[in-house]
């Protein structure tokens, strides 16, 4: 069975998806779409792929089974809706949908249509994070009470440069770019939180958007998670994401390379795990992929999407629905960042103070 793909948006992620999907044995890349005619012409000249500047025209003219949407975040909603209405399975880059109400409607639409839907939170396909999830779900570290997810890297290193990533109304900013991954990973491991607090969305170098993000997530059963993200951190060569989970019987730390476990007491059901420290590495944990570019997880997520279409797999470990939970948390954080902070003055009286000035952002957050 050959699955015919269309790809919309040829930025950094789009080009990477193009290379990955193009090599998949079950896929025919039928057409690509981008607003930049120049990029389309170069691609057509050297690879022969058909190019469109209008996604509607592409979907109308080219019979497609599936679409990858990797445009700036602001237009995800519109593109996803159109593709679903035309009965096309959709893989959408993260974040899913900036408008959480629209996001909920798209979750329902995909469900109604019975179409495969996935969002590009690729950390759900990193083997070391999956090993952490396996250990948590098996109860190895006991009752989990706190999680910390950190994401640091070098995206904005000075006060210049202007792409959609630094434009507030395009869905740019560290919150949508880095913190979303951390939030989604927390949700993947812990389920969805029902409240947030202490949110910080601060600028460092950017004019319009936040560069660092900190927040606490509160879960219905009392556990908490803290998120820290900063995309102005040059000390990392590329984005580095680390998760630490504390439970009553120990602790897990995981990043892309390894999953470390500290166990207070041995667990009867898992005699292979020793008391104290142990570690498993990506070399041992990672399943091979048919094509490698930048990391197995990028290929693995595309392969999973393809298998869901081909084999009718229903479990969907990275659905619109789970990504919408992440969007929802982001929305709560934006509101929380605007909320008054409690201050105890010199006389011991409590009062409130706004953390950030009112303005464009305040209106946007509402």
């Amino acid at each position, binding site marked *: 069975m050959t699955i015919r793909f269309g790809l919309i948006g040829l930025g950094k992620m789009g080009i990477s998806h*193009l290379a990955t999907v193009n090599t998949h044995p079950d896929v025919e890349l039928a057409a690509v779409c981008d607003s*930049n005619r120049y990029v389309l012409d170069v691609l057509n000249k050297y690879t022969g792929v058909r190019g469109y500047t209008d996604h509607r025209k592409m979907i109308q003219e080219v019979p497609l089974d599936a679409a990858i949407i990797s445009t700036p975040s602001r237009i995800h909603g519109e593109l996803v809706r159109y593709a679903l209405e035309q009965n096309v399975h959709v893989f959408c880059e993260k974040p899913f949908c900036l408008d959480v109400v629209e996001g909920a409607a798209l979750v329902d639409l995909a469900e109604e249509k019975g179409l495969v839907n996935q969002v590009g939170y690729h950390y759900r396909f990193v083997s070391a994070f999956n090993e952490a999830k396996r250990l948590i779900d098996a109860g190895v570290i006991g009752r989990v009470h706190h999680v910390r997810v950190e994401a640091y890297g070098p995206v904005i290193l000075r006060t210049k440069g202007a*792409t959609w990533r630094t434009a507030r109304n395009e869905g740019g900013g560290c919150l949508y770019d880095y913190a979303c991954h951390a939030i989604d990973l927390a949700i993947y491991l812990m389920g969805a939180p029902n409240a947030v607090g202490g949110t910080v969305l601060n600028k460092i170098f950017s004019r319009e958007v936040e560069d660092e993000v900190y927040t606490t997530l509160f879960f219905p059963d009392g556990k908490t998670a803290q998120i820290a993200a900063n995309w102005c951190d040059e000390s990392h060569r590329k984005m580095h994401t680390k998760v630490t989970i504390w439970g009553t019987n120990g602790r897990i730390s995981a990043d892309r390379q390894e999953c470390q476990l500290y166990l207070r007491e041995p667990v009867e059901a898992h005699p292979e795990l020793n008391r104290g420290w142990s570690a498993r590495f*990506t*070399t041992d944990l990672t399943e*091979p992929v048919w094509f490698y570019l930048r990391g197995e997880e990028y290929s693995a997520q595309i392969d999973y999407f393809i298998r869901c279409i081909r084999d009718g797999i229903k479990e969907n470990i990275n659905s619109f629905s789970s990504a919408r939970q992440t969007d929802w948390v982001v929305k709560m954080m934006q509101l929380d960042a605007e909320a008054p902070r409690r201050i105890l003055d010199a006389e011991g009286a409590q009062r409130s103070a706004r953390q950030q000035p009112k303005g464009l952002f305040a209106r946007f957050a509402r």
Partner: protein
Amino acid sequence: MSRVLFGDNQFFGINHMSEEKARAQSIKFQDMQAIIDVLDAAYEAGIRVFMCTTHERVAAICDHFRAHKEKYCDYAFYPCMPYAHKYVNAVTEFGMLDALKRFLPDKGAIGAMFKGGMSVVHKDMEGIAQLLIDAEMKMFWGLRTPVIFLQNVVTDLLLGMGFKEAFRIFADHVTTKYDAEPGFITMNMPRLLDVLDELGIANPIVCANINKIGFRMCGGIAAYEQAISKRRFRPIAMSVFASGAVPAREAIDYVCRQERIESIVFGASSAGNIRQTKQLIDDLTRSPAKQEAVAP
């Protein structure tokens, strides 16, 4: 090509097994002298090739080798280009076309700029690619660079996209302008060999992960072994220890048993490790799995 090549991952905080180790190495090699000391230890162990990315810090290493040419008269660099992160970060920061413009030669070089400008207008990737290669090669002036590699992120991106002509452009330019042999680093060796064959790039130098556990050997370890024994190309084995997952002797033995593998590239941070690994390669190249032969 030399049998043993010295790699550079350890100098730039790259370790596929552990971020903590990578950080510790970054700290150790913050000082340029620490890098030179390790390269000298490799030199004393008989390693005459440094296979390195075009990371900005390599420029200072090149300065050192140029300044001490008499000491390193038989030394060669195998540049691997580009250092992809600087491009990826620039694309993220400035967008695709503006990033490209930033890496083309500065305004002083009017002729080159004009050629670049024309290339952009005519969607002629050959001109642009040549300018980018030249920009990456600048730091190696006056040094021997008999083999020049295309880094795996770029090789595999082009391979995946089906941008086959780019390999031909790269091969032609490094051959004609630098009198060097083109090399290709990849994580997808069997697939790349098909494309290089199709392009008529004969007997290409291809550097890929070749290790006993099949780590990052896309297409599978069997396909790799088959290709190495049957196909006409010049394999270089990298990641032979699979980031430490395979014990040293076992790792080198696995590679040395495949006689058509021409070279092995490895990186290490201490003189002791370098000597041991070089010795192992020398011993097992002469006689793979000597330890089995003498076992009772």
